[in-house]
């Protein structure tokens, strides 16, 4: 009889450890990958950024961001000074309701909007240049060349597909990367192009990262966190996932993949997993100083992430220990 309270306490402690501690990271190896902050744009004391969302950088080191709270597209020089701002709230050309994803390609900026269909195009001086009509909302996209954009759309019936569109929004082809359809939203992915016609895909609501070729055939698949099931909840007459496994994916110039972890990571929205792009093997992890919704890596292998809930943009240099560099490669 006396032992009962002890058992209860043990049970409660076990239950709490499950909720607070999260899953164990047995598969990870301590590979020395570090980051060093080299630039910070915006702070709580100034009005430079309010809630930046999308990020892109060009070859000269200019940085472009979408800012949701002041409906704008902003340009910063390599030293972090704002050199251009465009946009206002509206439905017209060059205007935004809620600017979101941003891609830079060959002197053009491609911007999606949370509340408006399609992709708006701007030049690097932030002048409006055109619009690509896409009926359904876009959850992820990559510009492959001037006339081909890989798009992951949010649709009710179809899923598990990447659509390749031309610059008029017409479908060129579809890449189906999964034959079995899962419950709604569970197949939603963020994508990165591998530069050889294939794609790296990271599932938002599932513990899966895959590399597919141009036909959608899986080259490798990886699960890092041991997440068997994501909580789902009935809301607005649908059952939707409520926990994010992975938030974003980025590639560096040497073909390494960087994946930002979500709710199940030890440091939620801060842990970044680095994988070998050829094999999918986990090379190491590092932790961002602040929570972020995305990561971006420019052509000079600078990593960009969020701080202060979107008021600050941080640029980091990726540092690999010399003695372990071959292993990391």
């Amino acid at each position: 009889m006396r032992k009962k309270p002890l058992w209860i306490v043990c049970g409660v402690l076990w239950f709490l450890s499950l909720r607070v501690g999260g899953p164990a990271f047995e598969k990870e190896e301590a590979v020395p990958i570090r980051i060093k902050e080299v630039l910070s744009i915006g702070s709580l004391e100034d009005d430079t950024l309010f809630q930046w969302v999308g990020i892109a950088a060009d070859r000269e080191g200019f940085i472009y961001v979408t800012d949701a709270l002041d409906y704008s597209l902003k340009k910063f020089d390599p030293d972090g000074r704002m050199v251009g701002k465009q946009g206002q709230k509206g439905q017209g050309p060059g205007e935004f309701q809620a600017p979101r994803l941003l891609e830079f390609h060959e002197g053009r900026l491609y911007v999606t909007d949370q509340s408006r269909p399609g992709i708006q195009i701007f030049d690097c001086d932030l002048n409006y240049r055109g619009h690509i009509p896409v009926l359904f909302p876009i959850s992820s996209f990559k510009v492959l060349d001037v006339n081909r954009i890989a798009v992951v759309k949010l649709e009710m019936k179809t899923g598990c597909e990447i659509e390749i569109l031309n610059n008029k929004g017409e479908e060129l082809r579809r890449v189906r990367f999964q034959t079995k359809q899962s419950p709604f939203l569970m197949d939603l992915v963020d994508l990165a192009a591998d530069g050889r016609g294939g794609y790296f895909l990271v599932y938002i609501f599932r513990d899966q990262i895959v590399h597919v070729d141009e036909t959608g055939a899986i080259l490798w698949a990886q699960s890092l966190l041991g997440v068997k099931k994501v909580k789902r909840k009935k809301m607005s007459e649908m059952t939707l996932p409520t926990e994010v496994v992975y938030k974003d994916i980025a590639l560096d110039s040497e073909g390494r993949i960087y994946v930002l972890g979500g709710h199940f990571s030890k440091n939620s929205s801060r842990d970044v997993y680095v994988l070998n792009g050829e094999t999918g093997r986990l090379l190491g992890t590092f932790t961002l100083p602040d929570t972020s919704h995305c990561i971006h890596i420019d052509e000079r292998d600078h990593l960009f992430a969020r701080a202060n809930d979107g008021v600050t943009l941080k640029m980091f240099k990726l540092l690999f220990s010399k003695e372990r560099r071959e292993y990391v490669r």
Partner: protein
Amino acid sequence: MKKNRKRQKGNRLLVVTVLAVLILLMGAVGVQAGRCELALDRCMHDPLLMNMIGSLFCLNGYVFCKTYIEG
């Protein structure tokens, strides 16, 4: 008898305390997880968005909220 009663009372008190802590903890998690759900519910009931495409834009907003605000 008196000792037994005291022990039982102590046990009950412990169970009640533990349950209260658990409920509070779960409640806190629930409130935190509710922001995106609440926004989705509002969006889905917006008369301008009460069609199939509009609903999808609401759901896209829900996914954005989950990745941007939470976690």
